[in-house]
């Protein structure tokens, strides 16, 4: 998935707060940071001081022309200059090196924080934000931030020091010439303001146009095969040319302003230089205001030194603002509420002693450890996978309920199927069982315990889910199956794969179980991927199994082949099955037919067929399932 660069430019809302926050990530680098500041100061001062030393040097030489040349003073000044410069170069090296350590680590910390938060966000968050949106936090936004951290911070400090230092020296050398400086400063600020405003306006327009063009590219390339089948190539090109032309116009405008800023600033500085030369020259000739040739030479270097940092800062201002806006987006995610989990009922291993369950490291049964706040006692309940819904209402958004009064009961080892059209609420029910979403207290009970009291991670560990879209991770086939149980032995993995009937195709892969899967398992067919997902669920070996359209991409013949495996996988577990294909759900203990978030029919296959209701219609193909 490509990073999307088509977000319009944003201005950060709280610049101070964001900068403060970025700095808060630099903990543990106090010494480094102090060294950076010291280094920057020394490096900038060296530049300024080196020029200042030109004054006595040139005066020394000029005096030497008139009379006796004080050579020892000349050498002393030069040595002084060499020392200043050496310190300057070393300081530059040091602060850059320190800044590098700070910036790379800071970035790493921010990335880790962002990722850690992302992992703990509720599913709801991912419903509302596109992958591209989140992805660009890691690519675009951290990239600009990196730029800022490694260049701009030091640059800004250095510029500020240089500007102040040079200005002070200029004032000290000659207040008359400083008037010219102030006039120039006013002009420069105005020019930057004028061009900067147009430039950022231009860039916003460019980003918009870029977004439109890139969006079109994405859509057309995604649908490339359809474009071909319909010979739509010429029309697509025509449409694209229009967008491309618009983009070109906006981008030219934006870049023109950005490009001419440099020469304008540069030459304003030459104008400044020339004006100073004329006025200073006149003063030096007349000896007015204590001006002499040495001072003038230094002063002229100062005029150049003065404008450089201003130009650099103004050039970087836009990118710094972009970086801060990006940082703000990152922090906004980091500040998101994580998935709430107030559960205190935990999953433990236990063994049976008489009639009592006792917690035990080596126990062979899983149990819920349930501390009671009221009297401080702890009870243990064996994990069986009984699920109970009591008049559950639920909506992803408060005003749009998806489930309207669902009541159901699944006993351990039962197979419960949900049937109904898209949007009827099938997947929603399973999303509540593993608490991807939460419902009010007491509405869902799991092994008799209010599901909201169970710790989310433990609840999910007691269930396995095979989703409609199989997701595989970069790694070997073995790794991917082992995802269900990280400490599974190789034998356990093989057994799970055999159970899911995945073993035969895996062994036919180039490197068998060690075949690397890349880019979401693109080298496997949809059906093969689902088999892997089933194997993954099998290796986890949980009491509850949720199959959400798990076999939709497997053809009926293959499904028939894995049916045995599936049957043994389901054996002894509570299973919730969502399936499009009715042949998959036929042998369930109970089938719930859902419509608009309500269970309209329930019973086993034969009973429902006999009832000749909706299920019968569905089954005989008189009603559409879409």
């Amino acid at each position, binding site marked *: 998935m490509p990073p999307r660069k088509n977000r319009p430019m944003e201005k950060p809302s709280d610049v101070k707060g964001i900068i403060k926050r970025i700095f808060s990530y630099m903990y543990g680098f106090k010494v480094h940071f102090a060294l950076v500041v010291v280094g920057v100061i020394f490096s900038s001062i060296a530049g300024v001081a080196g020029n200042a030393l030109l004054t006595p040097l040139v005066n020394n*030489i000029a005096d030497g022309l008139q009379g006796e040349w004080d050579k020892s003073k000349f050498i002393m000044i030069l040595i002084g200059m060499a020392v200043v410069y050496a310190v300057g170069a070393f300081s530059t090296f040091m602060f850059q090196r320190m800044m590098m350590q700070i910036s790379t680590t800071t*970035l*790493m910390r921010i990335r880790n924080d962002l990722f850690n938060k992302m992992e703990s966000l509720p599913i709801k968050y991912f419903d509302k934000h596109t992958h591209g949106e989140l992805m660009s936090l890691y690519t675009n936004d951290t990239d600009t931030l990196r730029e800022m951290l490694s260049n701009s911070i030091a640059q800004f400090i250095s510029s500020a020091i240089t500007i102040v230092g040079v200005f002070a020296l200029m004032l000290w050398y000659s207040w008359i010439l400083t008037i010219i400086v102030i006039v120039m400063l006013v002009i420069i600020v105005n020019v930057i303001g004028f061009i900067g405003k147009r430039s950022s306006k231009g860039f916003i327009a460019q980003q918009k146009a870029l977004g439109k063009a890139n969006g079109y590219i994405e859509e057309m390339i995604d649908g490339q095969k359809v474009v071909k089948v319909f010979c739509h190539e010429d029309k697509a090109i025509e449409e694209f*040319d229009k967008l491309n032309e618009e983009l070109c116009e906006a981008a030219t405008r934006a870049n023109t302003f950005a490009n001419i800023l440099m020469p304008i600033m540069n030459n304003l500085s030459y104008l400044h230089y020339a004006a100073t030369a004329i006025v200073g020259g006149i003063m030096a000739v007349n000896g007015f205001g204590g001006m002499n040739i040495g001072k003038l030479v230094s002063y002229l270097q100062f005029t150049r030194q003065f404008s450089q940092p201003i130009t650099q800062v103004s050039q970087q201002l836009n990118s710094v603002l972009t970086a801060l806006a990006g940082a703000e987006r990152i922090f906004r995610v980091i500040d998101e509420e994580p998935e709430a989990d107030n559960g205190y009922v935990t999953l433990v291993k236990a063994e049976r002693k008489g009639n009592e369950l006792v917690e035990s490291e080596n126990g062979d049964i899983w149990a819920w450890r349930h501390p009671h706040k009221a009297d401080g006692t702890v009870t243990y309940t064996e994990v069986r996978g009984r699920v109970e819904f009591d008049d559950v209402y639920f909506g992803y958004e408060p005003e749009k309920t998806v489930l309207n009064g669902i009541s159901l009961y699944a006993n351990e080892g039962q197979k419960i199927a949900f049937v109904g059209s898209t949007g009827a609420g099938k997947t929603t029910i399973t999303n509540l069982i593993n608490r991807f979403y939460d419902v009010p207290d007491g509405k869902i009970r799991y092994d008799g315990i209010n599901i909201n009291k169970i710790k989310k991670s433990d609840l999910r560990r007691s269930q396995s889910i095979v989703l409609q879209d199989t997701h595989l991770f970069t790694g070997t086939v073995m790794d991917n199956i082992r995802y269900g149980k990280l400490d599974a032995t190789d034998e356990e993995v093989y057994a799970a794969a055999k159970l899911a009937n995945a073993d035969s195709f895996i062994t036919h892969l180039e490197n068998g179980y060690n075949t690397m899967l890349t880019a979401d398992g693109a080298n496997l067919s949809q059906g093969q991927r689902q088999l892997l997902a089933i194997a993954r669920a099998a290796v986890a070996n949980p009491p509850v199994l949720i199959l959400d359209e798990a076999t939709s991409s497997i*053809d009926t013949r293959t499904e028939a082949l894995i049916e045995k495996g599936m049957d043994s996988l389901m054996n002894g577990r509570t299973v919730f099955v969502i399936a499009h294909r009715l042949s998959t759900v036929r042998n369930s203990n109970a089938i719930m037919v859902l419509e608009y978030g309500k269970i309209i029919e329930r019973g086993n296959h034969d009973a429902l067929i006999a009832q000749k209701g909706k299920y019968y219609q569905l089954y005989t193909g008189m009603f559409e399932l879409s």
Partner: protein
Amino acid sequence: MLKKILSYVGKYKKEAILSPVTIIGEVAMEVLIPYVMASIINDGIQKGNIKHVALMGVLMVGMALVSLFFGAIAGRLSAVAAVGFAKNLRGALFRKVQEFSFANVDKFSTASLTTRLTTDVTNVQMAFMMFIRTAIRAPMMLIVAFIMSIKLNARLSLVFLCAIPVLGIAIAIIMTKAHPRFQAMLTKYDNMNASVQENLVGIRTVKAFVREDYEKKKFTKNTEDVRKAQFNAEKLVILTMPFMQLCMYTSIVAILWFGGHMITGGTMLIGDLTTFVTYTGQILMSLMMVSFMFMMFVISRASIQRIYEVLTEEPDIVSPENAVLSVQDGSVSFKNVSFSYFNDMGNLSLEKINLDIKSGETIGIIGGTGSSKTSLVQLIPRLYDATDGEVLVGGVNVKKYDLDTLRNQVAMVLQKNVLFSGTIRENLKWGNENATDEEIIEACKQACAHDFVTGFPDGYEQDLGQGGVNVSGGQKQRLCIARALLKKPKILILDDSTSAVDTATDANIRKAFRENLSETTVFIIAQRISSVQDADRIIVMDGGKITDIGTHEELLQKSAIYREVYDSQQKGSDE
């Protein structure tokens, strides 16, 4: 490679060339200004000649204005050239992709193609702009400033002759060492992003298996790797700045040392000394610029490479010369056809297929996942070329047809189908741009889509949003069928196109086909026996081969596979 890419500067060549030319003007002024400065000091201030100071001062102002003028023009020209170049490149890439066959698209993957057209083009644009702005500027500055310094004082300019190679070699060493480290960093960076991407797509899987901490640990390792690689690469690059300062400062001190002696010895003027100091900055700075330019080029080289790959990819399916421009009828023949996605006879998806289908027949195709049903039908509109043997449509080898002619007569509804942003009507018109309202409604009725379309608040004007998100799977499939019907093709191929449509509607669609498309050859690939059982003939495929052909009844008799599928779908049903 560069030459090919640069050829897309096209009509912006004028700007691309003029921009550096005007920059020469700017550079000339910039180098001359310190020279004038020397004159101000030498002939004006030192001699107390105020008139000369004023004259030269005005000259300098004039030069600065000229330089400003050239600089601004160059800025404008380079913007026009670089942006125009990017436009041409983007346009060329888009056109190229339109020419691509399915095989070409498969080779790159759609995600990668999108990146190449977006991010990579932007990178190249930036690099190009940087290039035309500094490629001439920096070397020009270096050369002119050096010449001027020789003119001022040849002996003193020997200092530069020492400094330039030292700095140049140092930068070259740093860059060559840094390059592989940057490559390594980018790889780590890609890994990290891939890991984020994976977690975004698979967040439900991660959460369902309670693997948040596991993923966090994995990611922390990734970011640590990136940090190390970045530090490794950049710690070399940051050496350039201090080193350049070292060279510059050493040169200045040397110039002052020798210069001081020369001046007092009477072989040099004071003003020249300051000019020399200025030139030191200009010369060494431009050397830095050149090195930055190389950096920029190195960074953008990956992008250039990726764009180049697309541009030079040969579309492997093109219309032949003297193409046949009309399709006689809807008959289809396969003669000894073998097909491999990798053009490798050892890795065949279809093996020695022989098939004769008369015009107007309805053909069902049944087979398991991976039995190459889709591969078979994709050869008919020449979405892929047969690796061996020939495919004939209307009695003519498909390779002899003009592609548009062939594909307009062979409508295919793809398995993974796409609707585009826009209204339903706009989407349907993909089938036939000039379709009348009656024709559109007629097609939708045949595809059983008319009823639900009119149920939308805006009917046929309903906006679908990107990717057709506002319709259900079954509705989408029916719209795609209607879109194909509007082509009024001689051959219609439905590749598992009614899987999300219920059996009753499915039957209605087939009934409509029978009544209205009796002239049209129809291929129906399906998982459900009910979707194909009333076809004229049904092809049973297994492992890239046709195992049986016949009617439903015949196949129940003679095909074990067919019977097995049939049984698995009938089992438990009372009917």
